[in-house]
């Protein structure tokens, strides 16, 4: 990993420090979820993005509130980076009335339309065509926003990916297809599930740019996203970005991780951690001190502790609301 130390226009050095903080928030959020899940305090299922924080944060840094995203099942980071509050997210995971979905959606369905988050998705590949529709609105109504569709390496094998990217391409829509390639789709190693080096190579089949970035290097992520956003806003159509990254945790609950080696995991954890990477860069550049880094880290932890407190102190939804919200 090398630091280009080039920042997108939109991203000031101050903002970069915020992003560093945000990455800690994301990590602590998911580690907390992991903990509560193990304790049986959160039920259902959940998919953690620990280790992948730079993709969400890096993309989010380039988006305004007007811009939209469609997320994935592994979407907590995506939500936070798009502006969701950890407290209301945590409340949702605890099934509380104050949660983003009033306790009806849970981890896989957090949506926050006000910040442009059109929803995480429990269906692999499900959000990709939806993003195309959101981009279509932007174009038809001349609203100027871009839409980012996050999806995984595994999702790139769903027909929905193919149909959606093709449609966006022929219509020149302002959408970015952002693939978080964390090497596995559940237990399926991307190396065995596709016969190509990069998911981004699929861009050729649609006549759009395909870019591979180091997903653990937030600078790379941001620069590629910036270019794609600009391209979209210029009316030149979609871009497919593939960010190579890794999830530290198992796919979801009760994953023995038999499909990968401990060494591989430790290599990513020790040598390629995206937070450490940014921290080192910030310190080397003199933007923060080691102490400041610890302070920011501690603050992020506090954010999550507060979120937990908020969640646990929130009321459960009234059972009277059970049959509400089906129709508008």
């Amino acid at each position: 990993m090398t630091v280009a130390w080039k920042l997108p226009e939109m991203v000031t050095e101050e903002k970069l420090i915020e992003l560093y903080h945000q990455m800690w928030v994301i990590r602590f959020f998911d580690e907390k979820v992991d903990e509560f899940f193990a304790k049986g305090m959160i039920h259902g299922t959940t998919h953690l993005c620990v280790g992948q924080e730079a993709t969400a944060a890096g993309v989010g840094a380039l988006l305004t509130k007007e811009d939209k995203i469609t997320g994935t099942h592994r979407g907590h980071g995506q939500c936070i980076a798009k502006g969701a509050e950890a407290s209301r997210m945590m409340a949702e995971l605890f099934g509380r009335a104050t949660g983003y979905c009033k306790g009806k959606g849970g981890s896989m369905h957090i949506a926050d339309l006000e910040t442009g988050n059109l929803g995480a998705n429990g269906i692999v590949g499900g959000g990709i065509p939806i993003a195309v529709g959101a981009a279509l609105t932007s174009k038809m109504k001349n609203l100027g926003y871009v839409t980012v569709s996050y999806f995984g390496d595994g999702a790139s094998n769903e027909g929905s990916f193919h149909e959606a990217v093709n449609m966006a391409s022929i219509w020149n829509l302002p959408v970015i297809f952002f693939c978080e390639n964390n090497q596995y789709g559940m237990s399926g190693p991307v190396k065995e599930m596709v016969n190509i080096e990069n998911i981004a190579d699929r861009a050729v089949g649609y006549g759009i740019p395909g870019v591979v970035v180091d997903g653990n290097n937030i600078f790379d992520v941001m620069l590629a996203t910036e270019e794609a956003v600009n391209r979209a806003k210029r009316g030149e159509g979609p871009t497919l970005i593939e960010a190579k990254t890794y999830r530290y945790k198992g796919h979801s609950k009760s994953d023995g991780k038999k499909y990968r080696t401990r060494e591989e995991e430790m290599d990513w954890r020790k040598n390629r951690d995206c937070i450490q990477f940014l921290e080192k860069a910030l310190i080397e550049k003199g933007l923060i001190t080691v102490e400041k880094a610890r302070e920011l880290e501690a603050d992020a932890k506090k954010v999550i502790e507060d979120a937990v407190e908020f969640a646990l102190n929130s009321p459960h939804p009234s059972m009277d609301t059970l049959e509400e919200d089906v129709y508008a």
Partner: protein
Amino acid sequence: MREITYLEAVREAMSQEMRINEDVFIMGEDIGVYGGAFGVTRGMIEEFGPERVRITPISEAAIAGASVGAAMTGMRPIMELQFSDFITIAMDQLVNQAAKNRYMFGGKGKVPMVVRTPSGSGTGAAAQHTQSLEAWVAHVPGLKVVQPSTAYDAKGLLKAAMDDDNPVVFYEHKLLYKASGEVPEEQYSIPLGVADVKREGTDVTIVATAIMVHKALEAAAELEKEGISVEVIDPRTLVPLDTETIIKSVKKTGKCIVVHEAVKFGGFGGEIASIIAESEAFDYLDAPIRRLGALWIPMPYHPEMEKAAIPQVPDIIQAVKDTVAFR
């Protein structure tokens, strides 16, 4: 009043709405100069241009998904699914996304989209192009389901569907496209969830949908000659279902026959019959509720077989007679 066809009524409903509401647009395969597989959108691209009459690739999942995304962000898309059989490909977006979004998100957002799609047999198009799969979508909370049987209903119900803030699956019957009837020129709306008594009668109630409404009416006319008075109810929308009108009629007649073109087994007729039997009408029932629907076969190509696969007027007449003669 002027008469136009069912097909023209559908087109007129769309065109009138598109003239006054910039957010409404239509997308689908071959809906441009081709006019769609059945010609429903003919002339629309000339009036509204290719942005609002948007020809798509052959990608049903993406068409549906893009409709969901557009609807969530402020547009009011109408998607034309070229044959309703292809809903098999769009199912995930309709059922797991469009229908559930709002509820999953805790009541946030809305998905105002209409899926217009031709269904039914009678065209010799064989098993993959003739199905009546409305029972699937009528089983999915979050969707609404419309099945107009006349030109008048088609126009008014489509207006209501376009005005609705929820995903609506709007079934058009291919053999009804050419059926004409009196249709007002101006826009009007027929509320979703209100059945129509297509014919009043006292001896038997027939609840029929789509093209079966016409067959039921034909049967009723025949039966009248034999002194049997048949009431024909067209639910018009399966979701929401106007159970009240149906139950009221059955309480009056004490006898009921449910007819649809869809395969009888597992079809929506079971829902209608069960609702009646569960209701206070139970006490009034003088005979079992009979259901008529297609045989347990994929639709055959051969024209005689195709006809024999679904209920025809004589079948309805026979069912009414059997019911009237019960006990």
